[in-house]
Structure formats: structure tokens, C-alpha cells
């Protein structure tokens, strides 16, 4: 059976429109679904711009310059399936998954959302409130607001004023969501010829207009949720994803903080009994990558000693990471890369697998923005080829960049 499937499998094809917009099509004739995903990179944007984009994504389904709220919702209803927009780590992600028969409608909707979103003042205000509520409702993941805030402190995650203006949001959107910063991937039951025919008149004509100047207004920062827990965090830096060193750095992160067999989990939870929740969180920026390792607790009176312990563990990692640690991290990362199912931080790289059409579409577009979608299929080999010495080197380099925070 798998031989038959292999025989009819077609490699993803790249279509590039005159405006430079890449569209990758991975045709799967057996799929009952098709996913259209648009990713626009924002890995070079400042924390206040990232927050503004996060709010914009939440406001996007309200109306466009062509469609009223009612018409837009009707179009969305006609498309069926699922329609999502989010700030997904280092990208603005808009995804539509539907039946292949509804592809044309879905393409219309995606074109509207990417190119003609209105961002009315009312929609932005609602989206801000919605975001605030969402952050306050993370009680079972108390580490999340803390890590998010630390990421903002480091300049690699959203942070800033919670109220946004229509004109500023539109200008920012036009600055980020544009053909030369965007990749579109279409995976599922629609052949490349149909994709090209349908998208030429919408995405092919997407103009590279210069974005008007704008400045994110100074304003009131969102209130921090009341904290009844403590989170200890330490960040390290790593190479950008385009670097030859990236896979080794990722394995280093896995050895330290991913999974129950990680050094942090075994030490902080199994040996010391300090915390129930331990974890790590990545930010993949255009010039470098960042990892935050963290654990959360409620019952201890202070965290000074615990912060030092985490830092000491990271400093000692070059010596303490064994070949077994490296092998475990490599296998876990490869397994996650194949069949992972995402996590609490949304659709972010190295949390997603490749099982569903929407997973595959995400990865094709994501890699296209980082030098070419072809790396999607070769990245497993990159991970598999990482040597123990490579990881020790990354541990040494990372140790020189440690920043920590506890509250």
C-alpha cells in the first residue's frame, strides 16, 4: 500500500508570481481537505509591533474593505471548515481549511484577509479585551504570562500598549503582510494548475505598495495578571535558523528542557521535587534564536536559590550533557517533527508535526520564509546528523548568554 502511495506522491511545487510572492503547492489527491495558509514573517519586529500584530490577528475577521462584518461572516460560513488567524511566534499566520470543492471561496477569503482587512476601532478594542481575557484565563498554565512577559523584556516577544488605532494597525499590517515577506502554502486535494489559475487574479496582482509611515502610540500597558505563583526562567541565545549550527542548538535545547527525560525535568522535578510544571519556549528571530527554560511553583516562600540552581545547570551543561542526553533529544525532536500536535503557544515551529494537511502547509510556508521549503524534508537528517561535540559547543556558547528572571 505504501509503495502505491509513494508511486503517486508528487513533490511540492513552487509557483512564484511577478510580485515575488511564493506559493508552494503540495497536491494530495486522496485528501478530503485542502489547507491554504499564509505566513508573513515578523521575526524582525519590535515587541510593541508584535503586540499590535497579535491584536490585529484577533480583529481580522470583523470586516474588510470589500465586505461588511455580515458579508465576511457569511463568506466564512460558506467556506466552512476552519478559519484561523494568529501571531504564531515569529509569523503572522492565516489559515483556512476546507473541502477541495470550496477552494475558490477559500482563496477569495484569504485574499480579503491578507490584503484588505479594515481593522475598525471597534474591532481592535474588542480584540484587545479578548487578548487580555485570554491571558487572565491561563490559570492552569501560570507559566505562560510570565514567560510571555520575559520574552517581551528580552525584545523577542509581544509587549506594549494594549489599545491600537485603525490607521496605525493598517500601516503596520501593510508593512508586514506583503508579498515580499509572505509565503503561501496550499496542501491537499487541489492540483497546482487549479491553484495557479485561481490565485493569479488575486495574489498575483497583490501590489508591493510602500507602507505609509507609522509609529506605535505610547499608551497604557496591559495590566499584569495578579500572580499567586512563582516562575523561574533563564534564557539563552542561539544561532538563526539559517545557520549550519541551528540543528545542534535545537538539540541542546531539547536535552535541557524538552520532555520528561530532559535534564531540567529530571533535576527540578524528579530529584528536587520543586515543581510540577517545567518546560521551555522558543523564539526564532531573524538574527538569532532564543530559548527560555522555566519552571513554576506555588508553595515555596522564595525563589532566589532556585533561580541560581537553574543558571548553574545551564553553565554546567557543556560538561553534563551526555551522549545519551543528545540521542534522546534528537529522537524526541525528530518524533515531534513528524507527528507532534502543537502546544499551548499556538502553531509555532518545532511544536507542530506533519500529520495533517494544515501541519504540512504550515511547515512548507515557514521554511520558504527561511531560505526554501526544500529544507522541510531534509531537516530530520540535519537533526539526526548532530554530534555530541556539536551540542557541547552550543552549550558552551549558550552559557555565555544566560539571562534569568524570577517572580
Amino acid at each position, binding site marked *: 500500500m505504501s509503495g502505491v502511495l509513494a508511486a503517486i506522491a508528487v513533490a511540492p511545487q513552487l509557483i512564484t508570481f511577478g510580485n515575488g510572492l511564493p506559493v508552494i503547492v503540495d497536491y494530495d489527491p486522496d485528501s478530503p481537505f485542502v489547507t491554504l495558509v499564509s505566513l508573513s514573517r515578523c521575526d524582525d519586529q519590535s515587541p510593541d509591533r508584535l503586540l499590535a500584530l497579535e491584536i490585529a490577528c484577533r480583529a481580522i475577521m470583523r470586516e474588510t474593505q470589500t465586505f461588511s462584518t455580515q458579508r465576511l461572516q457569511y463568506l466564512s460560513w460558506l467556506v466552512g471548515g476552519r478559519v484561523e488567524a494568529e501571531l504564531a511566534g515569529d509569523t503572522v499566520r492565516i489559515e483556512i481549511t476546507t473541502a477541495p470543492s470550496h477552494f475558490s471561496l477559500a482563496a477569495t477569503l484569504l485574499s480579503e484577509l491578507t490584503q484588505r482587512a479594515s481593522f475598525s476601532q471597534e474591532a481592535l478594542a474588542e480584540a484587545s479585551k479578548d487578548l487580555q481575557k485570554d491571558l487572565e484565563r491561563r490559570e492552569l498554565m501560570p507559566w505562560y504570562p510570565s514567560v510571555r512577559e520575559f520574552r517581551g523584556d528580552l525584545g523577542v516577544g509581544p509587549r506594549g500598549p494594549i489599545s491600537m488605532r485603525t490607521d496605525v494597525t493598517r500601516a503596520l499590517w501593510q508593512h508586514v503582510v506583503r508579498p515580499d515577506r509572505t509565503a503561501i502554502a496550499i496542501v491537499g486535494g487541489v492540483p497546482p494548475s487549479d491553484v495557479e489559475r485561481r490565485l493569479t487574479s488575486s495574489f498575483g496582482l497583490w501590489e508591493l505598495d510602500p507602507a505609509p509611515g507609522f509609529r506605535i502610540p505610547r499608551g497604557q500597558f496591559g495590566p499584569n495578571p495578579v500572580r499567586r505563583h512563582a516562575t523561574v526562567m533563564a534564557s539563552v541565545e542561539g544561532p538563526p535558523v539559517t545557520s549550519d549550527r541551528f540543528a545542534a542548538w535545537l538539540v541542546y535545547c531539547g536535552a535541557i528542557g524538552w*520532555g520528561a527525560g530532559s535534564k531540567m525535568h529530571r533535576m527540578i522535578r524528579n530529584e528536587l*521535587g520543586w515543581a510540577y510544571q517545567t518546560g521551555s519556549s522558543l523564539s526564532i528571530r531573524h538574527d538569532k534564536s532564543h530559548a527560555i527554560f522555566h519552571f513554576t511553583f506555588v508553595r515555596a516562600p522564595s525563589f532566589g536559590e532556585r533561580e541560581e540552581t537553574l543558571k548553574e545547570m545551564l553553565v554546567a551543561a557543556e560538561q553534563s550533557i551526555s551522549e545519551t542526553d543528545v540521542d534522546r533529544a534528537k529522537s524526541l525532536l*525528530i*518524533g515531534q517533527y513528524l*507527528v507532534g500536535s502543537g502546544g499551548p503557544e499556538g502553531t509555532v515551529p518545532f511544536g507542530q508535526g506533519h500529520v495533517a494537511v494544515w501541519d504540512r502547509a504550515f511547515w512548507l510556508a515557514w521554511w520558504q520564509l527561511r531560505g526554501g521549503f526544500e529544507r522541510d524534508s531534509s531537516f530530520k537528517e540535519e537533526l539526526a546528523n548532530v554530534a555530541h561535540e556539536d551540542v557541547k559547543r552550543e552549550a558552551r556558547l549558550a552559557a555565555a548568554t544566560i539571562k534569568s528572571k524570577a517572580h
Partner: protein
Amino acid sequence: MIAATAAILLAIPSTPAIHTLSNGATVCLYPEQNSKGYAAQVLVRSGSAYQSAETDGVHHLIEHLLFLPGNGEIQATAEANGSWMNGTTFREVSRFYVAGPASNWREGLNQLVKLIVSKGIPEDKLSIEKRVILEEIAIQDLDPDSAMDRELWSKAFGESPWALRTSGSSSGIERLSFEKVKTALNDHYTGENIVLVVTGSFDPAVALQIAEQLNDLPRGKRMSLPSFPDIEYGRTAATSPYDTERVGFGFFAPGIGSSNYSAVRIAIESIAGRYGTLADSQLVSRVFFGPSESGSLLTVSISGKKPAIEIEKEVMEMLRAAPTALTQERFRNAKAAVLANVRATQRLPSAIGFQLGLGVLFRDPHFGTKELERVDAVTQEEVVEALRLFSPENAVVLIWSKR
């Protein structure tokens, strides 16, 4: 579109093969060779409802301790094989699972079976793991929805074991001795109380060979859940222990079983949409199966910008009107939402496997595998009947106001 999708998805699965080992353990194999992943899970007839005040928290503690030999060696080995492994304790079942890429199923299944058969719980880790669980409990206490859910169970079931907290109470965990842990482990982790389910891409013949290692467990005695006591219906108002006002409803609906579960799901979905409109609120609902097909409990926690007492009034009015207010359009939308949810579940070997395991425990091996078909077949009249089960008169209501 929905019908077409259902037809495609339903064409894939076959009927699960169910084997009973010589010690009474059940093995359910449900291969789907086109899947990129696999999942294996062991469900054990254990959980907080099997406990007493003296053993409060013991099954949660066992779940944690089983992973600890060799500083978490079994989990680490599963991860070194590209899979991930974990466990959860519920009221009526404890669940241990491993999942990963299809190529790694054999080693993952081996590790899971080893976890259960070895029954290795290290005494020297008892106090450390109690600390970890106390942290877990403290984090749960930060969450008002979880707290409301616990309060509703407590109000409805009083002194019954069904009211015990799934994670255990802090004092219960602190009191537990290693002897009590060993006794519960030996009573519940036996052939008669174990169901192993393997889903996704794997070789059934080899999987059965690996599963036969479970025969190393003694047959033991099949554990039974306690009966539901009489429910104490009624309405209680209290000062909110959290920043927000909140209303909780616990519906004990004796008519819910696997035969009408699909209609109930659509009924809940149709109500859920209405809650959002009425109260500008957050709704969290959980459906729970009882000791037999005789009953289930749905607990709902609602918070919103309005005072809790107003939300309660609106919801009560809406519930009374729900059976007659179910328009064809609302029925269709709710059904479509449930179908989408079922479709999403069916692509995940771990989710479908858990449902299959529950189905075996509830004597309904098609629970899960036939869900898409069953939901698709539900009529509007059946949903109206299901809505009648959620009568305000049959609810335990808890109101948390700020003053």
C-alpha cells in the same frame, strides 16, 4: 460536504479486534496503516472514585510514582525512541499512554507494557513526589473553573467517593503511607482491571505478542465503581473565592449512556452557543460517564461581566426554553460543530484510542470508532429529548458572587 467527508473517513477504519488474555486483561487493536503515527494506552480501573477518605489521592500518587524508577528512565527511554509518554488520573479510570511516529511503535508499546507490568514504585521517592503533587494541586487551585467543578461534585455527592478530588486533597496526599500505595497498586493493577489499546500504524500480530507480557500480572479481582448516591439538588450562594463572579451547574442526567451520547453532545453544543450569546461568558463543560450506562454528570462553569445572579437567571430561562427553542438551523450548526470535533479527534491515534478504551470499559467497543456515523444519524427530535435531560430542576447550582 459533511456527508462526503464522513464517508471518506469512515472508509478507513476497520472494526477493532478485542482479545482477552489468560489473566483477564483486555487488548484492543485498531490498526490504521495509513497513519503516520501510533498510540498505545493502558486504562486501569482505578481513580479517585475508587478511593475512600483514608486513601484520598492514592491513585494519582501511584500514577506519578510508576514513572519514577531510575529517575524517570522509562519515560526517557520512550523519548529516546522518538515517542512521548505520560499519564492522567480521572475519577473512573487511570490512563497511561505513549505516542509517536509509526516507525517507532514497537519500542513505545514495549515501554508502556513494561511500565505497567513492572509496577515499580520507589519508596525513597515518596516524599519528593508528594511535594510535586502538592505543587500540582496548588496550581489547580489557581483556576476558578477547576475549583467550581470540584465544588459542584462536592455539593452533589456529599460524602460519597464520587466527590473526592481526582488529584487528591493536599491533606490526603500528605497522609498517604507507602503501604497504602502498595495495597492499592496490587488491588487495581491486575489483569481483570487493565485494558490496553493500540491505534494508528502498527502490526497487530506483533502488538499482541508484546501485549501478552501483561499476563505477568495476577488476574486479581475486578474492581467496581461505587453506586451514585442520591443527588442533593438545589442552589447555593457563596462569596466568590476568586476575582470573578461565576455560576456553576451540575446536571445529573440519569438517561445519558452510550446509546444517546451523540445526541447529548449535540444538545450540549446547542446550549453552549447560547450561553455565549446570553451571558457574554466563558463556558467550560465536562461530560462524565457513571458506574454503568445509567447516568452521567455534566458540570458547567460560567463567568461573565454580569453579576452571577443575573447570569443564573438568564441561563435558567434559556434551559427551560431550550427544547422548544431548538430551531432547525441551530440543530444543524450544533451538529456540524460536533462533527468537526469528531473528525479532528479521529485523526489522532491517541484520542481515538482513549475513546476506544473507554468504550471497552463501558461495554461499547464502537464508542469512538462509530462516533462520526452516530452523530451524523442523530435527528432533531433526539436532540430535543436530550435537552429535556438538562432540566433546571435537576441541577445542582452554585453561585459565587463578589459580595
